[in-house]
């Protein structure tokens, strides 16, 4: 069965510090990878996605992620965070045979401290 594991349930970071949110997936077939952000009392917003090509993907709000097939990982990074980045972040995968059906991780709560 396909699954997504987000290794940290909570990540506290000081403002302007770098951050990495970790995501690993399990699959025996090709996958497409996504990171979504959820602000309080809101739906999900797409940050970035990996479909093919370059393994380094840049998204909105200064976030980027790197696809590592050998380690089955898709970690999210930002070199300098802002208070407004405080939110829940979800890693998700979609499979070639299940177009647009997303399998989500449990989420990582990113808290930015001043």
């Amino acid at each position, binding site marked *: 069965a396909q699954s*997504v594991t*987000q290794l940290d349930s909570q990540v506290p970071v000081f403002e302007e510090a770098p951050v990495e949110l970790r995501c690993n997936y399990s699959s025996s077939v090709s996958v*497409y990878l996504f990171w*979504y952000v959820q602000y309080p*009392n*809101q*739906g*999900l*917003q*797409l940050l970035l*996605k990996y*479909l093919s090509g370059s393994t380094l993907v840049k998204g909105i709000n200064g976030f980027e992620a790197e696809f590592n097939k050998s380690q089955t990982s898709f970690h999210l990074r930002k070199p300098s965070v802002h208070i407004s980045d405080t939110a829940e972040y*979800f890693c*998700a995968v*979609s499979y*070639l045979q*299940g*177009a*647009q*059906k*997303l*399998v*989500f*991780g*449990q*989420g990582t709560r990113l808290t930015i401290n001043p």
Partner: protein
Amino acid sequence: DAGVTQSPTHLIKTRGQQVTLRCSPKSGHDTVSWYQQALGQGPQFIFQYYEEEERQRGNFPDRFSGHQFPNYSSELNVNALLLGDSALYLCASSSRGQGVFGEAFFGQGTRLTVV
């Protein structure tokens, strides 16, 4: 463009009752997917509708059913509500023709509380 709209935003129901949640997809989208997000968890796929038919289904009991209308809007129905059905229900719309290359846009969700 109003994006994906869901109604109602909040709902309180009693155990055993039935509930209907509604979703209007983003303009130009023809596929609607429903997700359940329990508190502190990631969203879980319930099912997906395209051309008024259920195309894919997650691991949810038959108490969960849906419908898609000719204008692509969709309803999620849950019968015989259990306390464990309390969650945020998210609707996502996308364009089938774009496959995985098409972005899924999410609504703000309906918060269902079962008491």
